[in-house]
């Protein structure tokens, strides 16, 4: 095997890799309209409203109507925009969001048709770093989109997004160091296996909180939706976008939420492990998806609850609170790991 696929320990034919890539993409991508609808419906419930309930039974066709409307709209771009970059930026956002799905493990290796298949896209030995790498590239989608629009509001939104992403990526990375030290591996499947007895949310609670809050910031969700800041920036980096390109940004945003939720579920909520019971293997992907959706619900819940932070509050929270806290958390974990072993 090539080093990228290290520690797989078995041979996987190319067609299986292709097939499972398609299946995982199809399944996870289906969560996007679900998250879209769930968000609008739940936000309604949180405000004593119903949310969309006119398109189809219970409004379940609302996301299709939304996306259909966007896709059939005319593409336009401002005269000051930088053409190819303007078109490329939403694609980058989409690509990086999709690419991160690959490392989410839904289960361990299983036997399908006589061949061993890992129920995940890839299991690189760099594991979490892969997610961080694509998270960092995702920032180009925002930044290029905002800059290439040739509009000051877009650019302001993109600058805010860039600053925010950089600030919180550091804390997010450090918050995971404790987990990595406890599991002794970067590979997500091994991290899940290490949580069989106790989910990392218990010993690494501080890390969990920091990771989740930084996740809110990374996905530009309220209370950290400053890059969008509807009230001040009209729409932030995607102000000048419309039609299909806006739909791409929109879908990428929700896909990012799902990806961050899935990674949190994998790292802190024990992946496919359940407490007290040991269900058969085919239940594992359902468990992972359920935990993911639970965290998506939490994302929406927080959106309905917290007001947007002021910009300086956001920065001081990231650098003065979370970064030191994550560092101390990593330090304490390191000492404890050495002491206990």
């Amino acid at each position, binding site marked *: 095997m090539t080093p990228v696929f290290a520690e797989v320990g078995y041979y996987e034919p190319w067609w299986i890799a292709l097939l499972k890539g398609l299946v995982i993409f199809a399944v996870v991508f289906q969560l996007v309209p679900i998250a879209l609808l769930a968000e609008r419906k739940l936000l309604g419930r*949180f405000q*004593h409203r119903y949310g969309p309930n006119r398109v189809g039974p219970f409004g379940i066709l609302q996301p299709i109507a939304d996306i259909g409307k966007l896709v059939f709209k005319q593409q336009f771009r401002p005269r000051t925009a930088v053409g190819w970059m303007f078109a490329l930026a939403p694609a980058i956002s989409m690509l990086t969001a999709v690419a991160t799905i690959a490392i989410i493990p839904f289960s361990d290796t299983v036997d399908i048709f006589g061949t061993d298949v890992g129920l995940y896209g890839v299991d690189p030995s760099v594991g979490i770093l892969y997610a961080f790498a694509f998270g960092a590239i995702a920032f180009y989608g925002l930044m290029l989109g905002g800059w290439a629009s040739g509009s000051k509001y877009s650019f302001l939104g993109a600058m805010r997004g860039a600053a925010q992403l950089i600030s919180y990526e550091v804390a997010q990375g450090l918050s995971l160091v404790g987990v990595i030290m406890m599991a002794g591996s970067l590979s997500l499947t091994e991290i899940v296996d290490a949580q069989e007895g106790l989910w990392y949310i218990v010993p690494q609670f501080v890390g969990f909180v920091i990771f989740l809050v930084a996740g809110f910031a990374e996905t530009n969700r309220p209370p950290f939706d400053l890059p969008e800041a509807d009230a001040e920036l009209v729409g932030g980096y995607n102000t000048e976008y419309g039609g299909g390109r806006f739909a791409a940004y929109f879908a990428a945003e929700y896909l990012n939420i799902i990806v961050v939720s899935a990674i949190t579920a994998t790292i802190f909520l024990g992946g496919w492990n359940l407490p007290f019971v040991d269900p058969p293997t085919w239940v594992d992907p359902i468990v992972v998806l359920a935990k993911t959706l639970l965290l998506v619900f939490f994302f929406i*819940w927080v959106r309905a*609850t917290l007001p947007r932070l002021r910009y300086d509050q956001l920065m001081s929270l990231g650098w003065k609170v979370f970064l030191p806290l994550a560092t101390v958390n990593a330090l304490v974990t390191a000492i404890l790991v050495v002491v206990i072993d």
Partner: protein
Amino acid sequence: MTYKPDDVVEVLRAPRPGPARSSYRAFGETLRGLKTTFARMVEGPKTLQYPEEKVAVYPRFRGRHKLHRFEDTGLEKCVGCSLCAAACPADCIRVVAAENTPENRVSAGERYAAVYEINLSRCIFCGYCEIACPFDAITMGHDYEMSDYNRGELIFTKEMLLAEPLDRTPLRAAGE
């Protein structure tokens, strides 16, 4: 006391909480906020699904006008006195009176309203017409759905005002 720019204004502030206290407070208050919003979700929606469910009105709600007939004889109560038109601050009522004749008896009085029009696009629903009317011939009804595609349709004639409204607006119950 006049303000002088050199004056030092001292603002009293509570002592800033320490890092432990403030982070505890931030965390606790966030949880409290989450609890509050979750409780709202549990309560369930309070929205009325408007076209299907209508807002119930109070008995004295002033909606679209109604003209009345006597229930026993079927004669119109309006005698064409134009007091409603005189009382109307928006000047939206037009009455043209005509004499009742033995072979064509429309109202109980000497005269009747040959033309009775209310321009509902001008009406302010003040209810003065109802108060001015000496025979209780015009009252404010309970209908509030009066939108239309052009203004001409909003001029209600006597026949329209005499007719029973097609959809009745729900009336609020006594204790509601």
